[in-house]
């Protein structure tokens, strides 16, 4: 069956009185961006919903594009028909016929937005439901927990008839809740943390630390590929800051304080991220920490590491199980990149027994003996390279002119 229109419902932000129009405007921008590959579609925002007229385009692919747009809570493909009893009955029968499932029970819910419609909602439930039942003797009515719910919305210019409601990403429209820096490693967790942060309406800029020649060019490419995938959730553009970390990391390695090296590295990364955040107007740092997962993610480590910044440290995964994180990574398409074998700087110089309960005073003491600590942080910030990524362009060639070969 060919549906005529998609009904896009917004998530919780519809409650926010004053900001509502700003949210809706953002929402329209993101929806238009997501469906721009289908020129025949028309979207309009009416009373806290977006209606996308399909104009002949099959709905499946369009729904797939919109599934990932943050701020949309659910989508219903619907038939649009004249607001008249007979037309509504026909549409109801067609929608039920298209549900080729074996559901046994159903109910009809009619809502009249246009109060001048000649029948009440109650009457309409019987008039439409009865008609569908006569055509489908296998169905039984169950008003409490039906397998199928046929919904009808009667507006003045059209009635919308549908049955299916697809749950989608939810959250807030991207970029409506401020900006943060995301610490992006090559692993499984940090891209998922980024996704959660973006779903909550945070605009992100990603920060990655690399230690060439200890880490390879491929490890950098891997992070670029991850950032490119994430950019698909960020309205198609995501900035990535690549920070050279070799000098700091090798200095720490020379301190002969192996159990503390990870703690010191994480603290240095946060210091740098803090400075980058201030440069780029971000008010928080997002990390992929998950409580207890590795030594640097125990409560004791988090406490000592977090001391170096006054910005809020947001840890979307902190209470999640590894398997939940992996499932999400697969769903957002970052997992297969994350598991590529190239090592990032976090797995270098890893001591045999990293401290799970670092002592803040000891750590600060050791850091005070690192020669030129402040200078190295300043230099790393200064030498940071920034690139802007899009979803369709992950691989960088040796020279831009080589693009012509493709």
């Amino acid at each position, binding site marked *: 069956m060919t549906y005529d229109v998609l009904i896009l419902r917004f998530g919780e932000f519809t409650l926010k009185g004053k900001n509502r129009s700003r949210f809706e405007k953002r929402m329209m921008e993101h929806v238009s961006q997501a469906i721009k590959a289908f020129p025949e579609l028309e979207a309009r925002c009416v009373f806290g919903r977006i209606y996308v007229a399909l104009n002949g385009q099959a709905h499946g692919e369009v729904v797939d594009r919109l599934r990932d747009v943050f701020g949309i809570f659910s989508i219903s493909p619907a038939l649009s028909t004249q607001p008249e009893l007979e037309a509504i009955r026909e549409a109801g029968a067609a929608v039920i016929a298209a549900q080729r499932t074996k559901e046994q029970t159903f109910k009809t819910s009619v809502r009249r937005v246009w109060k001048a419609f000649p029948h009440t909602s109650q009457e309409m439930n019987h008039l439409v439901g009865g008609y569908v039942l006569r055509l489908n003797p296998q169905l039984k009515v169950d008003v409490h927990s039906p397998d199928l719910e046929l919904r009808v919305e009667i507006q003045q210019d059209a009635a919308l008839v549908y049955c299916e409601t697809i749950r989608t990403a939810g959250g807030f429209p991207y970029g409506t809740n401020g900006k943060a820096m995301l610490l992006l490693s090559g692993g499984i967790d940090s891209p998922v943390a980024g996704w959660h942060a973006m779903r909550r309406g945070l605009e992100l800029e990603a920060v990655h630390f690399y230690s060439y020649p200890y880490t390879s*060019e491929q490890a950098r*490419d891997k992070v670029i590929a991850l950032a490119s995938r994430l950019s698909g959730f960020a309205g198609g553009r995501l900035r990535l800051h690549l920070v050279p970390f070799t000098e700091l990391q090798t200095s720490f390695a020379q301190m002969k304080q192996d159990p503390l090296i990870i703690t010191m590295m994480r603290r240095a990364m946060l210091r740098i991220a803090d400075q980058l955040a201030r440069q780029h107007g971000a008010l928080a740092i997002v990390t992929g920490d998950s409580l207890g997962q590795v030594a640097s993610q125990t409560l004791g480590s988090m406490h000592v590491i977090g001391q170096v910044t006054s910005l809020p440290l947001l840890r979307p995964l902190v209470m999640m199980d590894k398997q939940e994180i992996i499932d999400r990574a697969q769903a957002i398409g970052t997992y297969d990149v994350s598991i590529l074998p190239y090592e990032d700087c976090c797995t270098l110089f890893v001591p045999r027994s990293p401290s799970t309960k670092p002592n803040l005073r000891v750590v600060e003491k050791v850091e005070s003996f690192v020669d030129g600590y402040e200078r190295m942080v300043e230099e790393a910030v200064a030498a940071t390279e920034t690139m802007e990524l899009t979803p*369709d362009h*992950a*691989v960088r*060639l*040796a020279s831009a002119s080589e693009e012509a070969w493709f």
Partner: protein
Amino acid sequence: MLYFDHCASTPPHEDVVRTLSEIMTRHYANPSSLHRAGIEAERLIARAREVLAGVFGVSPAEWVFTSSGTESNNLAIFGAARAMQHRGRHLITSPTEHASVYETFRQLEREGYEVSWLPVDRQGRIDPQALAQSIREDTTLVSLMHVNNETGAVQPISELAAVLAEHPRVLFHVDAVQSVGKLPVMLRPWRIDLLTLSPHKLRGPKGTGILYVREGVRLQPLLFGGSHEAGRRAGTANTAGIVTSVKAVRLAVESQAERAQRMGRLGERLRRRLADAQGIVLTKVDAAPHIVHLCCPSLKSEVIVHLLEQEGFLVSTQSACSSKSGQPSRVLQAMRLERPLAESGIRISFGDEHTESDIDRLADALERAVARLQQLEEGRGE
């Protein structure tokens, strides 16, 4: 000389020829090497996957580069049949497939697999109902071509795909060597699991084949060695061949609609010209736009090829891969064409360079060749 054998191979695009030499000169390092030169070569291949994924609306990880269309077909069929044999050993294909599919299934039969050969009608088409009826509990793979390489017959892939949608555990392999760039080919909407492409049929280089492998489909490799192509095909990757192949495929797909229209008109013109020609029987199939197939009953098609060649026109008998066997065409026999027809097939296939006047000249030459041969045959008969 006018070349009308684009189903066999095509003149490479000038960008392809130039780029091959540039990449071979600049990026000769092994794409699997760890050093910068290796990484640069590897990035070219990674970029090629991205471009291909963009062209077909799928993911970059879903492509395997091989040495030829034949290898792609072999890898798809042997690879899937063997990887799935714990689930069943029943396979489905048709008797009109290209030799690289047909002979692969014959080999699997010798190895103890059971193969159902779906019959085709006189237009070379498979009935989707027949496919539906042949699927069993232990069926693991269906392999069917999109466009027949000999007659141009187009299989109703979307209808066949609809049948297979009811059987999500059965893998669907499509040999699209003759259709990509000429007809729309849709991977996701048709739920295709494996798809074979041959770039040299699309003005790309020889020596590179492409296989689409949907995410989650497991294949047992044919070649063992390094972990190239995500462990699915060992062997040093051919950087220049892969990049230029992908460019050729992209150009062909992007201009598909326009090409189909243009070639459709040329084909129509040739068919109209030959409709009433003495001694020529047009093969009635619902053909892809770039192929016209005809028979010259009781004449030897090989002789006609040579007579046309003398006049400067290159056409072909059956598929180039089977043309030296001297047997009546297996494909035409499967379509139940009578023996005098099945022995005398001529395949004419166009390219982007052909014009209406080329078509007219070919038609004239073909009529002359047939008349001349008929005279000779009559003379011999007396």
